[in-house]
C-alpha cells in the first residue's frame, strides 16, 4: 500500500512537472499532428501546375512540393519520421471551411492571399504572383473586358477572380450574364462548348488550361490584369508556433535557392500527365518576393473598389 502511494505521488510529480512543459512546447496544429500522428494536406484537382492530380490520381505540383518540404520540417520538429500524410481534396469553395474546421492542416493549391481571407486564415509567404485575365476562343472576337457587354461569362465559385470580374461588371454596367461553376476544368469546359464566351481566372492557370486543351491554338488569354493575386499556402490563424515553422521552412527554401529548382521543375520543364512545358520563367515580382519574403495580402476586388 505504501509502495502504491509512493508510486502515485511519483506519477503525480511527473505529471505536474511534465504537463506544463509539454503544453508549452506543443500547441494548436503541431499538437494535433503529434496526437493524431497524421498531417492533413488539402490539394486541388485541376490547379495546374500548382496542385493537381497525375494519371494515377496522385496529388502533385509546385505547391504540393513546397508543402511536402513543410511536412519534412514537421517530421523533424516533432521527431516523427513516420508521420502519415493524408491528402484531402478541396475546391475553391470548400478550402476555407475545411481548413478552419480542422479537416486539413495546410492547403496547398492556388489560393490568393487576400486581406479579406486573412480574417479567417493565415498565409505562408507568397510563393507565386499572378492576376486575373480572361480566356476566350479566338473565334469569339472578344478583345478586352468591355467586349463582354451582355455576354455570358463563366466563373469558378469562391475565387477572387469571381469578385474582380463582378466588381468590374458592376462598375462598368456591362450587364454580363454570369454562370457559376464548381471547378476550373468545368469552367473551361463551358468556354470550350460555347456555353460561355469567357472565363476570368489567374493567368497562369489559364495558360495551363489552354496547354492541356484539345486544340490550344483555338484559345487566347487576354488582359490586362484585372487584379493582382499573390498565392500562399493556407494554414489556420492564431497558431504562432505552426506559422513560424511553415514560414521558416518556406523562407529557407528561398534563401538556399532550392525554390529555383522546384520552380524550374514545374514551370520550365515537361510536367505530367501530358508532358507539356509551360515555359513560364519566374517573374520579376516573384524574384523580388524570394529575396524579401512577404505574406502581405491584397484587396479582394482587384483593381476596382468593393
Amino acid at each position, binding site marked *: 500500500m505504501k509502495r502504491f502511494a509512493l508510486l502515485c505521488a511519483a506519477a503525480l510529480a511527473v505529471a505536474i512537472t511534465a504537463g506544463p512543459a509539454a503544453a508549452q512546447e506543443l500547441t494548436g496544429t503541431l499538437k494535433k499532428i503529434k496526437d493524431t500522428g497524421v498531417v492533413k494536406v488539402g490539394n486541388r484537382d485541376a490547379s495546374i501546375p500548382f496542385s493537381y492530380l497525375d494519371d494515377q490520381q496522385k496529388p502533385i505540383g509546385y505547391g504540393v512540393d513546397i508543402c511536402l518540404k513543410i511536412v519534412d520540417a514537421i517530421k523533424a520538429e516533432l521527431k516523427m519520421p513516420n508521420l502519415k500524410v493524408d491528402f484531402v481534396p478541396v475546391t475553391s469553395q470548400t478550402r476555407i471551411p475545411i481548413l478552419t474546421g480542422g479537416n486539413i492542416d495546410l492547403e496547398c493549391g492556388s489560393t490568393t492571399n487576400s486581406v479579406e481571407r486573412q480574417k479567417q486564415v493565415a498565409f505562408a509567404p507568397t510563393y507565386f504572383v499572378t492576376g486575373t485575365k480572361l480566356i476566350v476562343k479566338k473565334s469569339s472576337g472578344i478583345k478586352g473586358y468591355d467586349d463582354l457587354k451582355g455576354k455570358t461569362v*463563366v466563373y469558378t*465559385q469562391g475565387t477572387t477572380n469571381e469578385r474582380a470580374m463582378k466588381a468590374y461588371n458592376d462598375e462598368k454596367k456591362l450587364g454580363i450574364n454570369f454562370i*457559376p461553376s464548381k471547378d476550373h476544368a468545368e469552367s473551361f469546359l463551358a468556354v470550350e462548348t460555347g456555353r460561355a464566351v469567357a472565363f476570368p481566372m489567374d493567368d497562369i492557370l489559364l495558360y495551363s488550361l489552354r496547354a492541356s486543351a484539345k486544340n490550344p491554338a483555338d484559345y487566347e488569354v487576354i488582359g490586362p490584369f484585372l487584379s493582382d493575386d499573390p498565392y500562399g499556402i493556407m494554414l489556420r490563424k492564431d497558431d504562432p508556433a505552426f506559422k513560424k515553422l511553415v514560414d521558416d521552412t518556406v523562407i529557407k527554401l528561398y534563401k538556399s535557392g532550392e525554390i529555383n529548382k522546384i520552380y524550374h521543375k514545374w514551370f520550365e520543364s515537361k510536367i505530367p500527365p501530358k508532358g507539356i512545358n509551360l515555359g513560364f520563367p519566374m517573374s520579376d515580382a516573384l524574384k523580388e518576393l524570394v529575396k524579401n519574403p512577404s505574406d502581405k495580402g491584397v484587396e479582394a476586388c482587384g483593381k476596382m473598389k468593393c
Partner: protein
Amino acid sequence: MDFSVFFQPAFSGGGIYLDWVLSGIKWTLLVSILGWVIAFSVGSLLGILRTTPVPALRWIATIYVEVFRNVPLLVQMFIWYFVLPEIVPTGMGDWLKTRMPVPEFWNAVLCLGFYTASRVAEQVRSGIQSIPRGQTDAGLAIGLTLPQVYRHVLLPMAYRIVIPPLTSEFLTIFKNSSVALTIGVLELTAQARQISEYTFRTFEAFTVATVVYLVITLAVALVMRVLEKKVRVPGYIGSARK
C-alpha cells in the same frame, strides 16, 4: 450567431444578402413546381401505360422507368446540360447552350421533371393495380370502353389511394432541386453557399436555408393533407378514422 449579416449590403448587384436568399427561394420554387408539372403529367401517363393490356406500351413505359430511376440524378443533370447539346445537330446545340433564355434553369426543370416522372409512374401504377380486378371487369361488362374504365372507374380511386406516396415525391422534388446548383442554377442551397463564402457566416446562411426548406415542405405537406381529406370517398379507403 449573428443574423444581421442578411441585412448587410451584398457584394454585388446592389441590394442586401437577404435579396440573395429571396432570389434563391424564387428559383427553388420555380424549378420544383415546373418540374413537378412535368413529373405529374408524364408520370401519370407512364403509370397508366404500365397497366394497359398492350405489351408494346407496357414495355416502353417499363424501359423509361428503369432508365430514369436507376441513373443518379446528378449524372442525369450533367447529361442534360453537358452531353445533350453536343449530340444534337450543331444549330440546335448552339440554341440549347446560348440562345435559349436561362439554359441552366430549363435544363434543371426538364431533368428533375423527367427523373421524378419515373417515380410518379410507379406510384400511379401501384395505385391502379391495388384496385380489385373485378372493377375493371364490371366496367367492361356494363359496356364501357377501356379508356372509359380508366377515366371513370380506375383513376379516380387510384389517385386517391396514392396521395400519401405522391406527397412524398412532391416533397422530394423540392429537396432534389438543390442538385440544380451543380449546373449553375443559383437556387436556395447555392445562394446559401455563396453567402457563406462572401460573408464567412456559414452557420447563419445554412440555418436560414434549412428553415426555408422546412417551411416550404411543411406547407406542401399541409396542402396535400387538406386535399386528401377533401377528396376522400366516405365508406372507402381512409375513412375508418373519424
